């Protein structure tokens, strides 16, 4: 993202966007003022991670310039402007500009492929990433296998994913039986090759409220058909991840099979992996790592995480390429030999693979896996062992003979983890959860001397320090409902736990999608990058703030006061800073790719 011209001084995080429209800037003035004394105070120890008053002044100058259609900072706070709660027919329908980078075009029917929609595929290889907590009720596995493209129920599914070969052979379908979808796959292949024959590539077709997103990876085609109104870039990122998952299972050398035999049938090679793909697709609805390109850690006391890291480092020094200790989707610690670094996308795909394949839980395993960002052509070997129900150790090596060595490493690690109570601390952390918006410290000043403790705060649910703000809704101060903070340097993020009123999975998913749109708009190519964004609709106030060091996303009650919301964001960022030793894995080599 972006810190192009902007950074003028170490303290200034955001800054003048040369593209900003002066008129809109004016409109922002009344919205973004919040230089209160407290801000100044905090600013002193802000490490550049606060919206300092100075910063805010600058922000006024750049707040603007969002995607014309969707993401303008609104002076007038109009409810429902962006997102009526019911299915929005207007979202991506013909005539309306889109936030995808494709082009401002319109398309009514799938059949009319407009020139504007057909563009060079950008090979930026962007993938999604790993993450976090989750939704336990979901049962893995393929659904609705009895359906095919003639079934009404199949046609009504909101989001389809397909993998097919360039000869039109089905490889994977989220819903229905691949073999019954041969005709449908052939149709998709025909569309792609029709466009390719004219020396072009189809990226996106819009048909009413449906988007059809295409991704071509050599002989393998990936297609998403969706009416979820997710941005094009998000859907494309999801296809990239699905492709990455395929590579993780088979490596890119699969392409050779197609060179030898264009009619090659890949389905037998993927036997038994439906659950891996369906689980990944499920992650697209709740795991921010899939679009943030960062991983998240299980909150742990600094010393506890250090103890885990030390023993992992110890084994890494003995010839293990990567040693990764995780609890569900959260990282406890990870260590890489030499300067090799593990891409967060690879971590997402690897943990998804391990968590979705039940057999890893039965006993220790040794399996070939490929890390697509590390080396898409070669297998590594993964020793995987579950230390308890949720906690698992993965030791990766290039040597196919290393099993017994890795097994010994695991025994050593397990002994140390038990002795130093890491495993019991992990269990406790799982119970306690991470950051809760209700626990946002009222006034960070008194704590600046002492080292604040995440645990202390999260445990006291009705803290007397609860701020007395003019507006207190359900949730945290100033109507804060939820936030995500992503550290750019660490490639890690932290997301607050869901608190009331975000109780139901449905509400959580809706917020997730809102974040996803916000992320896409902030990172849209061509019109970005952007520094801040404030938007209000019937469901939320969403606030996003991007600096050189971090990206911050927050959701507030739709009636939240803007100035207070911004002030609260400052406090959250400070809070994150205060507990960073517990919520982030420090000292991991930055992922430099």
């Amino acid at each position, binding site marked *: 993202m972006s810190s192009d011209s902007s950074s003028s001084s170490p303290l200034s995080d955001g800054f003048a966007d040369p593209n900003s429209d002066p008129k809109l800037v004016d409109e922002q003035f009344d919205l973004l003022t919040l230089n209160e004394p407290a801000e100044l105070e905090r600013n002193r120890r802000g490490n550049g991670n606060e919206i300092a008053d100075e910063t805010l002044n600058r922000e006024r100058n750049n707040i603007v310039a969002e995607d014309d259609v969707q993401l303008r900072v609104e002076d007038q706070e109009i409810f429902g402007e962006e997102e009526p709660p019911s299915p929005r027919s207007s979202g991506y329908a013909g005539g309306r500009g889109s936030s995808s980078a494709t082009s401002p075009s319109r398309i009514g029917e799938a059949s009319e492929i407009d020139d504007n929609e057909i563009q060079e595929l950008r090979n930026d290889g962007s993938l999604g990433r790993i993450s976090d907590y989750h939704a336990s009720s979901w049962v893995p596995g393929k659904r609705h296998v009895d359906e095919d493209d003639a079934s009404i129920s199949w046609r009504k599914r909101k989001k389809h994913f397909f993998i097919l070969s360039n000869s039109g052979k089905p490889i994977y379908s989220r819903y229905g039986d691949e073999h019954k979808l041969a005709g449908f796959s052939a149709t998709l292949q025909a569309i792609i090759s029709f466009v390719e024959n004219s020396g072009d590539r189809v990226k996106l077709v819009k048909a009413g409220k449906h988007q059809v997103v295409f991704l071509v990876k050599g002989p393998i085609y990936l297609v998403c058909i969706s009416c979820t109104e997710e941005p094009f870039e998000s859907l494309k990122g999801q296809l990239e991840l699905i492709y990455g998952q395929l590579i993780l*299972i088979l490596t890119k050398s699969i392409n050779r099979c197609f060179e030898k035999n264009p009619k090659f049938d890949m389905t037998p090679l993927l*036997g038994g992996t439906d659950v891996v793909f369906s689980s990944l697709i499920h992650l697209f609805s709740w795991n921010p790592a899939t679009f943030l390109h960062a991983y998240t850690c299980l909150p742990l006391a600094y010393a506890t995480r250090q103890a885990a890291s030390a023993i992992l480092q110890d084994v890494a020094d003995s010839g293990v390429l990567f040693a990764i200790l995780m609890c569900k989707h959260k990282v406890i610690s990870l260590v890489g030999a030499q300067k090799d670094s593990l891409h967060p996308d690879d971590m997402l795909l690897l943990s998804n693979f391990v968590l979705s*394949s039940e057999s890893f839980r039965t*006993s*220790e*395993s*040794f399996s*070939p896996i490929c890390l697509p960002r590390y080396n898409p052509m070669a297998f590594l070997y993964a020793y995987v062992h579950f230390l308890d129900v949720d906690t698992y150790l993965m030791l990766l090596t290039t040597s196919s003979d290393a099993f*017994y060595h890795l097994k010994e490493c695991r025994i050593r690690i397990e002994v140390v983890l038990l002795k130093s109570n890491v495993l019991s601390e992990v269990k406790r952390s799982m119970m306690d959860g991470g950051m809760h918006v209700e626990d946002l410290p009222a006034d960070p000043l008194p704590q600046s001397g002492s080292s604040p403790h995440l645990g202390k705060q999260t445990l006291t649910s009705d803290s007397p320090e609860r701020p007395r703000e003019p507006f207190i809704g359900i949730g945290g101060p100033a109507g804060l409902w939820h936030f995500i903070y992503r550290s750019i340097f660490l490639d890690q993020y932290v997301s607050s736990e869901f608190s009331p009123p975000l109780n139901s999975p449905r509400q959580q998913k809706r917020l997730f999608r809102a974040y996803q749109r916000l992320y896409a708009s902030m990172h849209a190519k061509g019109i970005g990058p952007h520094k801040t964004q404030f938007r209000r609709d019937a469901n939320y106030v969403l606030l996003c703030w991007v600096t050189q060091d971090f990206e911050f996303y927050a959701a507030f009650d739709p009636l939240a006061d803007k100035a207070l919301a911004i002030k609260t964001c400052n406090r959250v960022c400070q809070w994150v800073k205060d507990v960073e030793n517990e919520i982030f894995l420090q000292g991991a080599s930055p992922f430099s790719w």
Partner: protein
Amino acid sequence: MGCSSSLPDRSSGRLTGLNTGENSEGPDAKNLRVKLVLLGDSGVGKSCIVLRFVRGQFDPTSKVTVGASFLSQTIALQDSTTVKFEIWDTAGQERYAALAPLYYRGAGVAVIVYDITSPDSFAKAQYWVKELQKHGSPGIVMALVGNKADLQEKREVQVQDGIDYAEKNGMFFIETSAKTADNINQLFEEIAKRLPRPSSS
């Protein structure tokens, strides 16, 4: 010699400290250790056989094995020798076929499993037998196992076909049911008896 007395060691899955050195064969004649690999088509019940043998469990929900799982189990024979099996339970999926040598290399025992209700899996078993005859360790002890013997009414591979094929290839043959535990311990005891003993102790 009857071996019915074998008592599965419940501490399985862990090192059972019989001998030392992970990679070495047990040095004395009383305490043998041997690497055993299970091969066969996907879904024939390889993992179920192992889990029944090692943990005495049966889980009817199918869990596709990824790569290979490692488990170990020690049994005691009536002649007071013990045999520690270090078991590689390989995935049956086609994509792992090319990686099978990784797991059967150095194996003293290969258990090739098919499903008595699936002629295809019987054909696949024959493929593995040939592969091991070509590339397996010399002197490897091979067992041919027809699993899911509880599904008599769905049987498609006759017992005699199994017996004949095994005989032709110098293998030990048995039909088992991981579900009912039928013949599971017998399978491993029979293998244990057939292991070559160190010539002098």
